[in-house]
């Protein structure tokens, strides 16, 4: 009873804290000064159509690097906790529907994932979304083929190499251009074309491979521990 009272008091405090957001709400009519700068100068400075991508990969690129490091640590923690698979349980065969569907859909899903992260600077999407789409395609493959094993060595190599190249590109920016992860180490190209925006397609491809490999690693670990 006392516990419930404490929970209610905490909730009431939270509501009081959040209430000003609701009562004093004045919708923005103008962009904030930071956003104004990104929107005004972004297309010319970075060369990407999608400004969210420009913010993630270039302006706030260091945060993205840190975020991927957090993702890596979480994956490593899951792998460490689940440990080696016991291998006792036999998995039942998937139904024919899943098998046929996988054979038909898997190449399309993987192609769609690659499309999403290659066009990250032009259309909505990018490395994170593309990586997730690839991971879900591989999950479908694992569900359909009960006794197939995804080589964790291969996953580790993809993850390590893409992470290392990401940092190397960042350092190249420090030497050749204005700063860490500056995308103008490659020519900006024509605005709105697939090969443009300097190093952004390259960086986002690496992010996509790394995120995809990490998420497949999480799913693979959880599936193998079953």
């Amino acid at each position: 009873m006392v516990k419930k009272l404490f929970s209610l008091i905490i909730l009431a405090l939270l509501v009081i804290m959040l209430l000003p957001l609701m009562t004093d709400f004045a919708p923005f009519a103008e962009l904030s000064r930071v956003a104004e700068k990104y929107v005004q100068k972004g297309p010319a400075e970075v060369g990407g159509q999608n400004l969210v991508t420009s913010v993630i990969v270039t302006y706030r690129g260091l945060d993205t690097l840190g975020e991927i490091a957090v993702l890596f640590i979480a994956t490593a923690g899951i792998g460490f906790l689940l440990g080696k698979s016991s291998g006792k349980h036999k998995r039942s065969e998937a139904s024919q529907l899943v098998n046929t569907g996988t054979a038909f859909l898997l190449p399309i899903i993987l192609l769609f994932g690659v499309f999403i992260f290659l066009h990250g600077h032009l259309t909505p999407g990018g490395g994170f979304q593309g990586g997730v789409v690839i991971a879900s395609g591989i999950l479908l493959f694992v569900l359909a083929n009960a006794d197939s094993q995804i080589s964790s060595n291969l996953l580790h190599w993809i993850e390590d190499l893409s992470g290392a190249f990401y940092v190397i590109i960042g350092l190249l920016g420090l030497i050749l251009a204005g700063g860490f992860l500056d995308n103008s180490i490659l020519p900006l190209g024509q605005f709105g074309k697939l090969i443009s925006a300097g190093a952004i397609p390259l960086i986002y491809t690496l992010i996509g491979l790394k995120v995809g490999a990490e998420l497949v690693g999480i799913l693979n670990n959880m599936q193998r521990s079953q």
Partner: protein
Amino acid sequence: MLLTIILGIILIVLGLWGMLSQKNIIKIIIGFSIMDTGIHLLILSIGYIKDRTAPIMNQAVQSAGQVIDPVPSALVLTAIVIGLAITALMLTYAVKLYEIKGSLEISDFKELKW
């Protein structure tokens, strides 16, 4: 948009209430993920500007006066990916605790209680 701010706050409060009132560890993690969704909704609603479109500068969008703030979108995008990794880590801990103790009730874990 005011409506989505209210919705976000309701989801945050419901999620926290679930975390505080439920005894099952899986239920606590579900409460956390509801709270997560509420916070994302709140951050995005604050960055929204009425009658403006997504920050993609193609032929249809010519001036800066037509797009919304790209910064909240970028923040929330990374937060969602991190949220998945953290949820998976929490669930792994829950499975390990069940392996050791044979129970998911939070009140059965008394080792660190004082």
